[in-house]
């Protein structure tokens, strides 16, 4: 695994993503998903909303980095608000 040049922060990052994916898979099995149409006027399931959240969070972090500077904890707060909004209204 040396060639992959692992670091703790990246490892934690991937563990969080993997945990999210597994959690949502388990949730999808236990409580089957109901598609609904939100403010984007597209049909989304829980998994879709997770995808939209993760992809959007990546862009929020990049925008924060480019416009504000290296203060990622604050960007993460914005991401959490964004995630809540996505799961509530999209």
């Amino acid at each position, binding site marked *: 695994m040396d060639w992959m040049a692992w670091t703790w922060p990246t490892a934690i990052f991937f563990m969080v993503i993997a945990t999210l994916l597994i959690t949502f898979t388990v949730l999808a099995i236990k409580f089957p998903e109901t598609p609904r149409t939100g403010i984007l006027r*597209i049909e989304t399931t829980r998994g879709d909303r997770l995808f939209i959240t993760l992809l959007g969070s990546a862009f929020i972090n990049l925008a924060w980095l480019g416009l504000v500077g*290296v203060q990622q904890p604050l960007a993460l707060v914005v991401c959490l608000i964004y995630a809540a909004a996505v799961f509530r209204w999209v």
Partner: protein
Amino acid sequence: MEKTVNQKAWFLVLPVLLLVAFSAVIPLMTVVNYSVQDTFGNNQFFWAGLEWFEEMLASERMWDALGRQLLFSLIILAIEVPLGIFVALNMPKSGFWSSLCLVLMSLPLLIPWNVVGTIWQIFGRVDIGLLGYTLDALGINYNYTQDTLAAWITIVVMDVWHWTSLVALLAFAGLKSIPDAYYQAAKIDQASRWKVFRYIELPKMAGVLMIAVLLRFMDSFMIYTEPFVVTGGGPGNATTMLSIDLVKMALGQFDLGPAAAFSLMYFLVILLVSWVFYTVMTTLEKRET
């Protein structure tokens, strides 16, 4: 009660996931690891945090390449999609000529990218190339190795030559699926040729055209080989598209950290665009049914 979706069938794609893990996921994870570190070779890495992302976001070089890339993709879409539809509309619908057209149209699609590049590189040369020599003899100043506009025209025309047939073939497939009854109804209503196109053919082709636009956008957004062979990204940086710049950075300069940060952002843009196209496509399909 609302209908739920059963997603259990997704477990059947687990074997594919395993393959993709080795071909895409693990390399991608490595890129993420590289993007937060610096290396001078020898597999020795030093923590750099988000420095490379910051540097890349502020780098004019990346924004310029992105601008050129978007311009290129927009130009070829604006040419290839209408041209492809036009060709498909004028193709014979059945019989020998139809088959001949289909075979001829698919020929450019079968040629490997670097061969396409080489063909156009020679074709455009002023000393031995048919196109370059002819233009030169006509007194037109054309030299794709020195003139930015000539270089752009060459790669755009090359891409149009290479890929318009894909759009045409997809549009043709869409046209073939329209039942005759629609045309008969239009005839009874004395609809003009334009109205037949606007209200029958175009809506029926919408699905395949979305696929064509998606494929062409993705492919042109990631274009590397053809401009690399023809112009090498020149003159200057005039035709340095994102992937050419990325390869220069990663392999030419061995700046693995910045290149990794660059490629992650590149990947995110592609992921976003693919998702938008996919969502629009599936939403359109659902509305139709």
